[in-house]
């Protein structure tokens, strides 16, 4: 007991003596926090701020954030876990009006704070040239963010200064109304023009340089041009508000298209980039064009990942084909590309990409009448656009040296019924003849974590060993801008301006890389351009925004069970069992709506612009609501 008391006294005394130093203690500068002053005098720390902002750039569907958004439109569907909260991606009754809402003013404020602080800094290390470059980069980031907001929300308030409350009791002067939609696009163009020559980073693919700014301008102006043109098409639902917060006058279309074309041409003519053509195997080449990080001549701007620095993502773990999954058992194959997308890839002779000789899957003689018996499962995809191989793994192909085992079952000849009888089994099962019944890669109608459509993703899937484990993960980069898109932007803008020859040159350049002969297109329609973008830019977060700006999303995804575009189709391969017959051992294909896909995609006119959160309107009554909500 005595010792306890003495210990207590000792502690008390020690505390007393320590507290004498309290003035010094309070003056100690913090070891874990930087003050604004310290940050904005040191270029290295400012780069840290930039890195943070680059990382926070909004991305709707990408390798890391929004990976599930690849399976909610018509490029693919969900084949992962069947819990209701994820299975709903196949059963969306409609898209909620806030599904792709973005009100990213925290980002805008952080940029504005950084710009103001850099302007005020009088550190010697921060030379005027550096200051100019940093501010240019910050303004680029802000323009990127505004573009992402305007494409989702329509016109938003343009804030270029910090908003500081004066504590006088009336915040009304901080409440900015929405700018017109066209003003935001004009703001983006003006900002990019103003800063493009101040951006350094020449040759960088991870930080913005002049060409990155031009690529953003090329895309943003193309969006503005098509919004001006197609929002006003007769017979289409017009989305506009009286104040012009959404809705760009039709007369502005040509001006925007011209700006887009000029920006695209400046990139193409600069010679800084070329379409990637390193690999002589065209399908592999298209795959490499996106994932090859060493000496890639096509990529303009990407969100990079690096395993050694702990920056990685789960895209390969999530989406790799089941038989290639390295983390044991099941857990992959989240996104299954749709047959709709596969059939959008044309044949190299320019004919439409509809697959030949497929049955209906009804298991009747009539449903089997149109079958073509293929020697190998991949033969049905012969002579297709090489980008199909580069984007999608289909039956019979291999990845990382392993052949995929895609086979849904067998069809056994039934002489008495004069038709084939269908048999499907569990994954990786054998038929009584000792050969495969159902492959490990499915497709399966009900099994989770195996393709429901018969296809797997190849684009962005990492072939490195261990990339599909949750421990190692993948560090493929996410390409934001690449020359292929710029060519298509140029082609579309030229087409809309009536410059058909230029449009053909640009569009054919992209097609030639995919294996089409030179000048494969001699005439151009908007539908052709739309399909070209669908196949070239599949799974690169373009499809939704393209359909929105062309104002066809509510027609393509009209929620009707009978509309083939609104439903996700599957293609199931089967082996023929008919001993002694020449067709024995050959392969046939059935096409039907994917079994797990229940509700047709339904995009309502109210989805063209997202709803604005009620809390935003409560805080700022000057904010006007978007049409339809």
């Amino acid at each position, binding site marked *: 007991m005595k010792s306890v008391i003495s210990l207590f006294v000792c502690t008390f005394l020690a505390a007393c003596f320590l507290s004498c130093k309290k003035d010094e203690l309070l003056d100690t500068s913090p070891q874990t926090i930087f003050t604004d002053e310290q940050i904005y005098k040191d270029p290295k720390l400012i780069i840290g701020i930039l890195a943070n902002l680059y990382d926070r750039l909004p991305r709707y569907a990408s390798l890391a954030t929004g990976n599930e958004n690849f399976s909610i439109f018509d490029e693919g569907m969900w084949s992962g876990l069947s819990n209701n909260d994820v299975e709903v991606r196949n059963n969306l009754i*409609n898209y909620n009006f806030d599904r792709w809402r973005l009100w990213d003013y925290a980002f805008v404020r952080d940029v504005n704070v950084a710009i103001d602080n850099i302007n005020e800094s009088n550190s010697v290390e921060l030379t005027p040239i550096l200051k100019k470059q940093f501010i240019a980069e910050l303004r680029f980031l802000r323009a990127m963010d505004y573009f992402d907001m305007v494409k989702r929300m329509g016109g938003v308030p343009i804030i270029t200064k910090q908003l500081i409350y004066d504590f006088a009791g009336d915040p009304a002067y901080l409440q900015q109304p929405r700018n017109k939609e066209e003003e935001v696009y004009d703001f983006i163009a003006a900002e990019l023009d103003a800063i493009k020559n101040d951006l350094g980073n020449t040759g960088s693919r991870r930080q913005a340089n002049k060409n990155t700014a031009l690529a953003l301008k090329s895309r943003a102006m193309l969006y503005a041009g098509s919004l001006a043109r197609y929002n006003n098409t007769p017979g289409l639902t017009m989305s506009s508000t009286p104040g012009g917060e959404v809705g760009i006058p039709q007369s502005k279309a040509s001006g925007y298209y011209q700006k887009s074309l000029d920006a695209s041409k400046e990139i193409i003519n600069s010679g800084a980039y070329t379409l990637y053509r390193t690999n002589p195997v065209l399908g592999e080449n298209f795959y490499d064009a996106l994932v090859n990080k060493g000496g890639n001549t096509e990529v303009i701007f990407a969100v990079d990942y690096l395993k050694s620095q702990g920056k990685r993502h789960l895209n390969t773990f999530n989406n790799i084909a089941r038989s290639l999954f390295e983390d044991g058992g099941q857990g992959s194959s989240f996104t299954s590309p749709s047959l709709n997308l596969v059939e959008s890839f044309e044949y190299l002779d320019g004919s439409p990409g509809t697959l030949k000789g497929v049955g209906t899957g009804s298991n009747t003689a009539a449903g089997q009448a149109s079958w073509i018996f293929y020697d190998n499962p991949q033969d049905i995809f012969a002579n297709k656009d090489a980008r199909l191989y580069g984007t999608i793994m289909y039956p019979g192909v291999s990845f990382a040296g392993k052949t995929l085992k895609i086979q849904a079952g067998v069809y056994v000849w039934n002489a008495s019924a004069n038709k084939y009888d269908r048999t499907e089994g569990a994954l990786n099962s054998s038929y009584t003849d000792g050969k495969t019944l159902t492959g490990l890669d499915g497709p399966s109608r009900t099994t989770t974590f195996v393709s429901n459509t018969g296809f797997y993703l190849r684009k962005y899937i990492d072939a490195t060993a261990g990339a599909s484990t949750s421990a190692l993960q993948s560090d493929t980069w996410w390409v934001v801008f690449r020359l292929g898109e710029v060519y298509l932007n140029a082609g579309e803008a030229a087409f809309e301006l009536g410059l058909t020859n230029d449009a053909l040159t640009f569009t054919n350049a992209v097609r030639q890389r995919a294996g089409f002969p030179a000048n494969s297109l001699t005439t151009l329609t908007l539908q052709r351009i739309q399909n070209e973008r669908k196949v070239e830019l599949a799974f690169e977060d373009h499809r939704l925004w393209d359909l929105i700006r062309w104002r066809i999303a509510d027609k393509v995804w009209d929620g009707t069970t009978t509309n083939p575009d609104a439903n996700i189709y599957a293609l199931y391969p089967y082996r023929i069992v008919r001993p002694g017959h020449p067709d024995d051992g050959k392969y046939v294909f059935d096409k039907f709506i994917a079994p797990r896909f229940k509700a047709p995609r339904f995009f309502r006119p*109210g989805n063209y612009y997202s709803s604005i959160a009620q*809390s935003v309107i409560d805080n700022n009554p000057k904010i006007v609501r978007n049409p339809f909500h």
Partner: protein
Amino acid sequence: MKGITYTLPLIALSVFLFAGCEKDNRTPPGSTLTGRVVYNKEPIGVRSGGVSFEIWQRGFQLFSSLPLNIAQDGSFSAVLYNGDYKLVRARGAGPWADASDSIDVHLSGSATIDIPVNPYFIITNAGFQKNGSNITGTFTVQMVNTTREMELVRIYIGPNYVLDQNNNSANVTRTAPFNITTPVTLNVAIPASLAAENFIYARVGVKTRGINELMYSTSQKVQLK
């Protein structure tokens, strides 16, 4: 000593549990607001899960709307606390013209209200019958509000009562313009998936150009056998 060690936590636990019942729970809302969306006292059929109104109440820190979902037959019901509410017919919500006035709802106990709307087109006198391997629907389309054009009419059939754009087994569309001064007839073939049923349901809808939602007739049962 041992007894105390064991019983003390037990007592503490039970005190917690019993006290918790007092603190955590509020009385659930008990007043029901029911009603229908009507034009000329007739309910307006809509898409299941597709149309909702907003219920607002002022006087609380959180100012946000509650959705009032309209069932496919045009009826709705919500369980709320007693109080004064504003019912807002959100813009562009249904197949009718926007109305900016909110409706005051005083709820004490329960209330039934009919919400009047101003549809562009309505369907009246819809009737369905089996005609060989087809279902034939006959109905009248009536233009109510002349500010917009009709885009199309569509007949839906399916195995369930809930029937609309999203839920149907087969549908057939007739695109405007066509004569609506006389009754319109639409045929839809009974698909193989429904051929074995004893009865199915049928419904027609009319779409106005530039409006999200269709206005539907009542879902009607059609005997196949």
